[in-house]
C-alpha cells in the first residue's frame, strides 16, 4: 500500500526528472557538493538517485542521503541549462519517502498541529520561554537528557530561543498604537514620525518565526513601512505551509495554502509585504503547489500581490534616512530571496543608501548559510560546515554589521557570530532600516 503510494508519487516525477541532462554544471553552484564533493550531494546525483528509486534499482530508503541533504537553495539553477525543478523533485521525493518512513511524531505534531494554529504556536513558544527561564534547556543539555533524540538535542542547542512575547504584542505595546480592525485584525496606525501618508495600504505578513522568535524584527518592519508612508494591517495568519512542503508533507502544505487564500484573497490592500524571503517565495509560488487544482487561479492572483520588504520599499521609494549608520556593513543573500525571488540588488541598494554606511560585499554572499529551516536540525554536520565557510568569508570583510532577512539565516548566522565572529552583529534588514529611518527607536 505504502509502496504503491510512493511509486505513484515518483512516477509523477518522470518528465521533470528527464529534464536533467547530467551535464554536471550544477556542481558549480551546489553548496553541499562544494563541501563534500560526492555525487549524491549534487543536483544531478540527487536527480539520478530519484530516477534509480523510480526504476527500482535503488530502494527508496537508500536515497535519503541524496534527497534529505538538499538545501533547496536553487543555487544550482544559476548554472543549469535546463532549469531542472530540483526543489520540486526533492520535496516530492521526500513525500514518497514519507509514505514508507513517516516523520517522527514530534515533527508531525509541529507541522500538522502547531503551525496551522497561531494560537497554539504562541502558547508553545511561551512554554518554551518559560522552560528557558527556568533553565530547563541548559539543564537538559548539560545532563545529556536529549541524547536519545539527536534532532531534538540539536534543536535545543542551535534552534530558536523564544523571547516569551509575540510580534503582535510588541507592536501593540509600541509607539505604533495599533487599533483593532473590524475584521478582527490588529491595525496599527501610522507612527508619529510619519509626516504624510501617501495613502498606501499594505498587509504585513507576520510569519511564524517573526511572531514568536524575532518579534522585534516584525515591529521594525512595521515601523519601516509606516515610515515609508504605508498604512499597515496585520492579518492573523497561520504558517504559509513551506515547512510542510520541504519535509514532504504536500497535503499539509496544500491545506495551509488554501487557508492563506481564504484569509488573504479578500484583503483590501495594495500589497502583501513579507519580510522573510522564504515565506515570500513560497507564497509567490503557491500556483505551482496548487497546479491543476481549482485554487490555482486564486493562488496566481494572490502571488501577484505578494512581495518582499526590500523590493517593495525600492518599488515605492524608500523613506529618507533620518539617522546615519556609521559602520562597515555586509549582506547575506537568503537563498529564497536570491535564487527564488531573484532579489539581490534591492537590499544592497537600501543598505548603501543609508548615510555613513560602508558597504562591503562578502565572498560567497549568496551561498546558503546552512540554516535552511529544519536543515540546521536534521543535517548538523553539513549545516555547521556551511556556517564555518560563511563565517570565514564574512569575517574577511571586516564588517561590523551583517544584515540579512530570513529567520533561518538570522538564527544560523547569529550563532556563527556568537561562536566565531567576535565583534560582528547580525541584524535583520528591517531592524537595520529601522535604525536609519526612524528618528527614535524605543528600547524594548
Amino acid at each position: 500500500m505504502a509502496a504503491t503510494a510512493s511509486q505513484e508519487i515518483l512516477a509523477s516525477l518522470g518528465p521533470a526528472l528527464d529534464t536533467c541532462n547530467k551535464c554536471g554544471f550544477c556542481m558549480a553552484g551546489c553548496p553541499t557538493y562544494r563541501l563534500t564533493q560526492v555525487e549524491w550531494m549534487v543536483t544531478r546525483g540527487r536527480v539520478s538517485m530519484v530516477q534509480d528509486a523510480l526504476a527500482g534499482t535503488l530502494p527508496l530508503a537508500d536515497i535519503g542521503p541524496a534527497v534529505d541533504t538538499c538545501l533547496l537553495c536553487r543555487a544550482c539553477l544559476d548554472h543549469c541549462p535546463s532549469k531542472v525543478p530540483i526543489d520540486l523533485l526533492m520535496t516530492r521525493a521526500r513525500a514518497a519517502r514519507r509514505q514508507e518512513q513517516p516523520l517522527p511524531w514530534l515533527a508531525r505534531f509541529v507541522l500538522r498541529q502547531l503551525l496551522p494554529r497561531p494560537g497554539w504556536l504562541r502558547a508553545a513558544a511561551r512554554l518554551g520561554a518559560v522552560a528557558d527561564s527556568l533553565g530547563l534547556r541548559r539543564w537538559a543539555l548539560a545532563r545529556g537528557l536529549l541524547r536519545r533524540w539527536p534532532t531534538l538535542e540539536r534543536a535545543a542547542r542551535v534552534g530558536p530561543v523564544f523571547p516569551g512575547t509575540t510580534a503582535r504584542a510588541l507592536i501593540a505595546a509600541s509607539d505604533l498604537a495599533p487599533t483593532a480592525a473590524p475584521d478582527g485584525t490588529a491595525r496599527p496606525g501610522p507612527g508619529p514620525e510619519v509626516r504624510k501618508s501617501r495613502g498606501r495600504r499594505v498587509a504585513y505578513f507576520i510569519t511564524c518565526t517573526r511572531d514568536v522568535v524575532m518579534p522585534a524584527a516584525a515591529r521594525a518592519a512595521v515601523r519601516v513601512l509606516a515610515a515609508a508612508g504605508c498604512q499597515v494591517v496585520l492579518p492573523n495568519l497561520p504558517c504559509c505551509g513551506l515547512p510542510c512542503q520541504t519535509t514532504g508533507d504536500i497535503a499539509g502544505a496544500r491545506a495551509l495554502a488554501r487557508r492563506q487564500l481564504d484569509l488573504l484573497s479578500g484583503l483590501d490592500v495594495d500589497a502583501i509585504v513579507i519580510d522573510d524571503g522564504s515565506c515570500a517565495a513560497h507564497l509567490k509560488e503557491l500556483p505551482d503547489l496548487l497546479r491543476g487544482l481549482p485554487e490555482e487561479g486564486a493562488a496566481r492572483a494572490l502571488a501577484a500581490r505578494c512581495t518582499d520588504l526590500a523590493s517593495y520599499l525600492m518599488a515605492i521609494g524608500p523613506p529618507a534616512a533620518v539617522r546615519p549608520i556609521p559602520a562597515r556593513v555586509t549582506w547575506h543573500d537568503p537563498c529564497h530571496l536570491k535564487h527564488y525571488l531573484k532579489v539581490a540588488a534591492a537590499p544592497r541598494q537600501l543598505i548603501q543608501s543609508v548615510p555613513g554606511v560602508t558597504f562591503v560585499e562578502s565572498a560567497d554572499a549568496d551561498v546558503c548559510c546552512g540554516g535552511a529551516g529544519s536543515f540546521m536540525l536534521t543535517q548538523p554536520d553539513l549545516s555547521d560546515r556551511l556556517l564555518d565557510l560563511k563565517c570565514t568569508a564574512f569575517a574577511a570583510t571586516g564588517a561590523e554589521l551583517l544584515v540579512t532577512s530570513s529567520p533561518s539565516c538570522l538564527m544560523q548566522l547569529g550563532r556563527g557570530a556568537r561562536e566565531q565572529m567576535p565583534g560582528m552583529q547580525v541584524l535583520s534588514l528591517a531592524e537595520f532600516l529601522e535604525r536609519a529611518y526612524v528618528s527614535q527607536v524605543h528600547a524594548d
Partner: protein
Amino acid sequence: MFPTATAEFLADLAAAVGADHVLDQPYQLMAYAYDATGEKYMPTAVAFPGNAAEVAVCVRACHRHGIPLVPRGAGTNLSGGTLPVHGGLVLQFRRMQQVLAIDVAGRRAVVEPGCTNLALQQALAPYGLCFAPDPASQKVSTLGGNIAENSGGPHCLKYGVTSSHVLGLELVLADGRVVTVGSDLEDHPDHDVSGLICGSEGTLAVVTQATVRLTPLPRGYATLLAVFGDVDASGRAVSAVIAARIIPAAMELVDGPTIGVLRESGFTVYPEGAQAALVIEVDGDPPDLPAEQAHIAAICREHGALQVLAASSEAERSQLWLGRRSVAGAYARLSPSFWVQDVTVPRDRLPEMIRAVNEIGARFGVRITTVAHAGDGNLHPTIPFFPSEPEQMALIRQVDAEIIRACLRLGGSITGEHGVGIDKLPGMAQMFTPTELTYMQRVRRALDPDGLLNPGKLLPDEQGGLGPGDDCTLATGPVANGLPTAPAGADSDVSPGIGRPPCPPVVTLRPTDPDAAAAAVAAVRRDGLAVAISGSGSHRSWRPGPAADYAWLRLDGLVGAVEINPDNLSATFLSGTPVGAVQAALAQHGLWWPVDAPPQRSLGGVVAAGARYPGRTGYGPVREWVLALEVLTDSGERMVLGRPTMKNVAGYDLVKLHIGARGTLGPLLTVTLRLLPAPEQQVTLALDWPSAATAGLTLTPGQSVRDLAAAAEWLAISPAQVDGLGASQRLVLRLDGRAAALERRVAAIQSILPDARILTDATPAWSEWHAWREQAVAALGPHWVRMRVAVPPARGLALPQLLAAALRSVPWQAIGPVWLGLATVWTHSADGAAHLAALAQQAAARGGTAWLEAAPAGVALPVTPSADSGPTPAQTVRAALAPNLCYNPHL
C-alpha cells in the same frame, strides 16, 4: 569478463587510501554510475586517492585482482568516457585538486588532476595569466578530465587544444609504476608520450599530476555579431577573415534553426530571415583592436551580412555573446533532453556540412539545430528528444549515423572535442582503416597489457589487433628485386650513420612516390631488415650507424605538394620536400608555415626531429603546426594519422608521438601542415647581448620581449671564435604582423631594449641563423657535436653564463630562445669530452637537462641509472610499434 570485487579487493583499497575514502554502498556506487552521457553502469567500488602513491596502490590492487578501473574527474564528458561499462573501480580525484605551483616567470603551473579548470584560471588571474583551454564545462570539469579528453572550447583556432598546453605529466602506469613523461621544460629528448596521453581517455595510464603551459591573459577584446541570410555566406566570411590575416580568438556560429529557437526564446537581436550568425572576437593589445574590428565588419558586410553589430564596451560584448551562450537553455525549452553531436570538418567544408545536417534532419523529419566553432570547423548538431520515447531514440541513432557518414565524406573527424568513449565506437571503424585501428590497439596493449584501464572505450575491438612483434621476425634474407634504389654511388658518401659507417646498408631505397615507398619498405621488412631513414641528408646525425644489416630509406625523392587548402589553412606535402620549397609553394597562396626551419632541410626531417627554429618563441614547438601524417607501420603498411582539421580527438593522437621521434617509429611519407596567413610584415631587430642581458628585461606577462617578438634568439660564439659577427653574443628579434601594430611593438621593444636597432636588410640575420650549423661545423672540425640544452624558462637568461662556464676551455657556438630556457650548442668532442658532461651537469643543477643530438661514434654522456628499473612508456611504445628497433635502430 572481469571478476567481481571481493572483500579482499575492498580491503586492499581501504589499506591504500583509507577506509573513509572507499565507497561500496549501492547508493554511493549508483552516484558514480553515470556521466553527462546519460547511461548508467554501476561500478564495483569508488576510491578517492590522495596522492600518486595511493593511486599506484589502487592500480596495483586492480592489477592483482584483475579488476578494471576508470579514472574520473567531474564526469562531465559527453561520450561515456567515465562510464564503468565493465564495472570495476572508479578512481575519483576530489582529494587531488591543488594547484601545486605557479611559475609566473616560466609560464607554467603544476596542477593535480582533480583541480577544476576554473579553479586554475582563478589561481592564475592575479598574475595576468590563464590556462588557454576553456571548454564549456570549465566551471566544473577537471584538469585530469580536460587532459583525458584533450578538451577544446571556443578558442582553439588561435590557442590550440589542451595538449598544446600540457608540457609534462606524472602518470601511474598499468603496472602501478609512477613515472613522469614530457617535461616541465620547453624541450626534451624523449618521445612525446604526454602528447599521446592527452586525449587517451584514461586508457593508457592514470594522470596524477600535470605541468601545464600558461598564456598571458588577453589585454583587450573586440567583438562583433554578424548575421547572414544564408550559411554559405557566413562560411565565405569566415574564410575571408582568415585570408585577411586575422586569426580571431573565437568565431562561433549558430545556424538558422538555432536562430529560430533563440528567437522563440525572445532574442530579438537576430533579424527575420537570419540563417547564420557569427560571433567573432579578436583579442590582443587594445590599440590594435578597433582597426581589426572594423576590418572584420567590412568583410562581413562585403559577404552579404544582413546586420553587423560591434561591441564597444564590456556590457555590449556580453550582449553579443548572450545569444550564443543561451543556446543550451533555449534548447531546453524544446524538450527535456537533447542529443549533442560533435564532428569536425576542414573549415572550408563547414557550410556544406551544415547543409548536409539540415538535409538529413529534413529527410528523417527531425529538428536539428547546429552551433559550431566555425574557426575550427567543429560543429555540434543538436537534436531535442524525449528520453521516455524509445522510438525517438532509434531514429536519433539513425540520424547520428548519417551525420557521421557526411562528416567523413567531407574529410572530417567523428569527434572534435567530446571524445570517443562508448558513444563514437561505431564511427571509429568508419573513420579508420583496420591497419590504423590495429596500430592504435598496439599502443594500448603495450601500455595496458591486461586491458584494465578504462576498458570498452575509445577503440572498437578490445580483443582484435596484433600483439607486439607478431609480424616481425629478424630473419635476414635476400632483398627482393625490383625495389626502387638510389642512383649508383648515392650511398657511397652519405649514410644515416657516421660518414664512415660501421657497416653499409644492404640496400638503399629511394622511392619517388608513397606507394613505391610502402612497397619497398614492406619488402625489406618482410625480409626482416631494419630500416634506417634519412630525409634531405642535411641534418646528418653523427651517431653510431646501425650495427647489423639494414636497408637505407632515403626520402629525398618524395618531393611535392599533395594539396594546399588556403581556406582551411592546411597543406599536405610529401615528406622529402625541402622546407624552402614548401614555403615557396605556400607563399603563392599568401600562406606560411610558421616553422621557418633551414630551407634545405626536408619537411619530414624537421618534423621527425621536432626541430628548433627561429620562430619557436612566438609559435611554439613543431607539434603545434602539424595536423596529420602519413606513416608506414613496421610491416610497411600505409596509414594516415590525424586529419586536416583543427580539432580531432578520434583515437590516440599518434601524430604527436611521431613528431620528434626521429623516425624511430617509422618513416613519414606525407605531412599535413597547419598554416597561417603569411605575415604582412616582418621586422628584425638586433642588439649586442650584454646590453640585452642588463636591460632589466621584464617578464611581465603580455609585455615582455617574449610576448612581443615572434622570434627572440640569442646567438653566441665563444670568444676564441669571434669573427664577422662583431660581438661574441647577440640578440636577434623578429616581429611578425600588421604594419601598424609592428610599429608600436617595435617602440615597446626599444623602450625595454634601447640598443635594439632595426636591421633594414634582415635576410642575413636569419640566413645566418640557418647557416649557423654549417659555420659551426666548419669551425669546429671533424669532431663536432651538437647538444640541445633546456633549463626552466625562468632561468633561461642564465643560460649564457651557464654555457660560458661549462665550455670555458673549448670553442663553441650556440643559438636559442633563451626566454624559453632553450639553446642548441655546437662544440667538439675532443679532449675526452669532459666538457660535455660538465655542461649536462650544470644544466641538471639548474633543474634542466642537456642531451647529445649529433655526435661521432663512441661519444656519449654518462647515463645516470634511474632508480626505476622498468622500461619508460616511450620505450614500451617504441617496442610495440617498431619491434626490435626496426626503424632507425641507431637512434
